[in-house]
C-alpha cells in the first residue's frame, strides 16, 4: 500500500482526462503535485518511415491522417514543401481556398477545445453547447470538401475541389451564426464565476518561461509571446489578408481561453475577407510524378501552434525523408513545468489547455507488446474466451445469440 500522503498516480496511458494514450506519471502529496514525468510514444505509427516507402500522392493522404483535427494543417504543410521543391506555381485561387479551409479548421478546432476545456473542469453543459454550435462549421466543411474531417482538399499543385458561388452565401450565414455564438461564449468565459475560479491562476507560464521552453501557438501567445507563423512567415494567402495576432498577458489557462476565442473572432473576419476577394482562375496545376532532388522546410500555424515539415526529395516519385514536428511536441514539455506544486484537480485542464494532440506528436513506429500470461495478467485471447465462458455460465451464449439474431449494421 502506498504512503497515503505521497501517492504516485498514473495519468494514462488510459485515463478519462486524456483523449489519446500518453502517460503522465504524477507524484502527489495530499492534493498537491510534487513532481511529474511525461512518457510519450504510445501513439507511434511509423508515419515518417512509411512516407519514404510511398509516392508523394500517397504520402499526402497518409500525412493528412497524422491527426484528425488538424488534418488540413499537416497536409498543407507537406504539400507546400513539395511544391517548393518542384518549383510549382500554385494559382491564387487555390491558395485562397487552402486558406479558407485552414481558417474553418481553426474555428472547428478552437470550438472543440472550448468544449473539451469545459468537460475537463466538469462543465459538461459548455461542452454540449460549443459542440452543438461547432456542427455549423463542420457542416460548412462537409459541404465544401465532402467530409467533416480528413478533408482531402489538397493535391500537389493546388486543391481538389472548387468553391462555387452558391456555397458562398451559405458559408457566410454559418459564420454569422458562429460569430454571434462566440460572442456569447466570450461572455460566459469572462462572467461565469465557477469557470473563472477554475481557469484563473491555473497553469501559470511566465513570458520568460514560455520563450525559454519553446512554447508555441495559443499557449505561448497567452503568455504575451507575440509569435504567429501566419504573420511572421506568411504562406498561402495570409500575406494578403489583414488580421490581428491575439496575445494576452494573463499567462494562465484563462488567458489561453481568451486567446482562442479571440482567434475565433479573427478567423471569422478572415473567412469573410477570403470569400470577398476570392480570385478567379484554375484551382490546380499539373504536378509531375517525379519530384526533382532538393529540400524544403515548410512552416504552418496550425490551430495548436507551429507545425514544421521538412521534405527532402531525391528525384524519384518517393521522398527521401519527411520530418514532421507537430506543435504538441513543443508544448508538452511546458506541461510538467506548469503543473509543479499545483493541485491534482488542475491537472486535466492544464494538460488540455495546450490543446494536446498526441497523435500528431507521435509518429514513428508501432509494435504491439506481447501479451504475457504470467500470474495475474491475461493475454487478449485468454481474456476473450474467459468472458465468453463466464457469460455461458450465466446462461447467455453469445455464439448462439449471434446465430439467432442478424446483427444490425452488417453489410447488405
Amino acid at each position, binding site marked *: 500500500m502506498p504512503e497515503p500522503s505521497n501517492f504516485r498516480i498514473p495519468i494514462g496511458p488510459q485515463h478519462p482526462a486524456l483523449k489519446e494514450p500518453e502517460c503522465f506519471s504524477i507524484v502527489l502529496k495530499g492534493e498537491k503535485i510534487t513532481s511529474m514525468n511525461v512518457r510519450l510514444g504510445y501513439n507511434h505509427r511509423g508515419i515518417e518511415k512509411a512516407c519514404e516507402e510511398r509516392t508523394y500522392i500517397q504520402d499526402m493522404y497518409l500525412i493528412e491522417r497524422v491527426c484528425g483535427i488538424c488534418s488540413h494543417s499537416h497536409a498543407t504543410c507537406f504539400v507546400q514543401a513539395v511544391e517548393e521543391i518542384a518549383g510549382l506555381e500554385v494559382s491564387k485561387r487555390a491558395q485562397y481556398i487552402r486558406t479558407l479551409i485552414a481558417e474553418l479548421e481553426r474555428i472547428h478546432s478552437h470550438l472543440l477545445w472550448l468544449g473539451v476545456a469545459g468537460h475537463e473542469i466538469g462543465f459538461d453543459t459548455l461542452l454540449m453547447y460549443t459542440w452543438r454550435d461547432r456542427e455549423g462549421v463542420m457542416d460548412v466543411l462537409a459541404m465544401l470538401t465532402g467530409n467533416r474531417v480528413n478533408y482531402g482538399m489538397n493535391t500537389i499543385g493546388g486543391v481538389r475541389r472548387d468553391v462555387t458561388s452558391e456555397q458562398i452565401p451559405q458559408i457566410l450565414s454559418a459564420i454569422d451564426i458562429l460569430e454571434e455564438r462566440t460572442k456569447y461564449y466570450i461572455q460566459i468565459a469572462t462572467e461565469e464565476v465557477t469557470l473563472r475560479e477554475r481557469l484563473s491562476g491555473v497553469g501559470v507560464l511566465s513570458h520568460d518561461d514560455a520563450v525559454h521552453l*519553446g512554447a508555441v501557438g495559443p499557449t505561448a501567445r497567452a503568455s504575451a509571446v507575440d509569435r504567429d507563423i501566419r504573420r511572421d512567415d506568411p504562406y498561402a494567402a495570409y500575406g494578403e489578408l489583414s488580421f490581428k495576432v491575439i496575445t494576452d498577458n494573463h499567462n494562465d489557462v484563462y488567458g489561453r481561453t481568451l486567446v482562442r476565442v479571440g482567434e475565433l473572432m479573427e478567423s471569422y473576419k478572415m473567412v469573410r475577407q477570403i470569400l470577398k476577394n476570392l480570385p478567379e482562375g484554375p484551382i490546380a496545376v499539373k504536378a509531375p510524378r517525379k519530384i526533382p532532388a532538393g529540400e*524544403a522546410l515548410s512552416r504552418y500555424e496550425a490551430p495548436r501552434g507551429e507545425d514544421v515539415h521538412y521534405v527532402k526529395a531525391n528525384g524519384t516519385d518517393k521522398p527521401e525523408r519527411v520530418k514532421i514536428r507537430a506543435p504538441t511536441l513543443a508544448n508538452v514539455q511546458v506541461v510538467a513545468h506548469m503543473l509543479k506544486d499545483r493541485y491534482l484537480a488542475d491537472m486535466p485542464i492544464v494538460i488540455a489547455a495546450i490543446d494536446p494532440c498526441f497523435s500528431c506528436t507521435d509518429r514513428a513506429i508501432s509494435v504491439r507488446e506481447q501479451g504475457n500470461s504470467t500470474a495475474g495478467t491475461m493475454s487478449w485471447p485468454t481474456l476473450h474466451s474467459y468472458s465468453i465462458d463466464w457469460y455461458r455460465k450465466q446462461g447467455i451464449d453469445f455464439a448462439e445469440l449471434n446465430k439467432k439474431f442478424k446483427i444490425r449494421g452488417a453489410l447488405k
Partner: protein
Amino acid sequence: MSEENDIQQELTGQFSFSIDKVRIQRVRRIFAVIPSEKFAEVFDYAVKKLKFVILAAITGLDEGPTLGFIYHIARENGIVLNLHVSVPKENPVLKTITPYFPAADAYERELVDLLGAKVEGLDAGFRYPLPDDWPANQFPLRKDWKIEMLDKKEVTENA
C-alpha cells in the same frame, strides 16, 4: 532579400568556409552546410549573435556513410536558418543543444532512438519515442532497416 544576404555575408565572413556552403533557397529560407568540428561554434554564433532564437525542429537523415542532422532555427521575423551537419555513421556523436533550447530534449531523444545518434550531455530519462523493450541497435529510420528485422514473434502476436 537584403536581410537574408546580410546573414549570408556575416556567416561567410565570420567563418572561413566558402560562400557556396551557405545557400539562400528562397525568401526567409537559408540552408548552410557546416563541418561537424565547427558546428558548436557556428551554432553558438547563430543563436547568440544572429538572434536565431526559435528552435523549429531537428531533422535526422541517413546519408549512406554518414548521418546528417539539420537544425532548423528561426528568427522572430520568420527567417529560418537550416544548419546541416554530417557525422560518420560508425561514431555518430553530437553535442546536445539543450543548454540553448531545453525543448530540444525531445528532438534529440528522437535522433537517439530512431537513427542511433549519440548525443553528449543528454541526461538519461524516458525513452522517446520507442517502447522500452525495443531491441538494441535497431534504428528504424536508417535506410537499411526493414520491418522484418524485428523479432517476428513480437510483430505477429496479437495482430
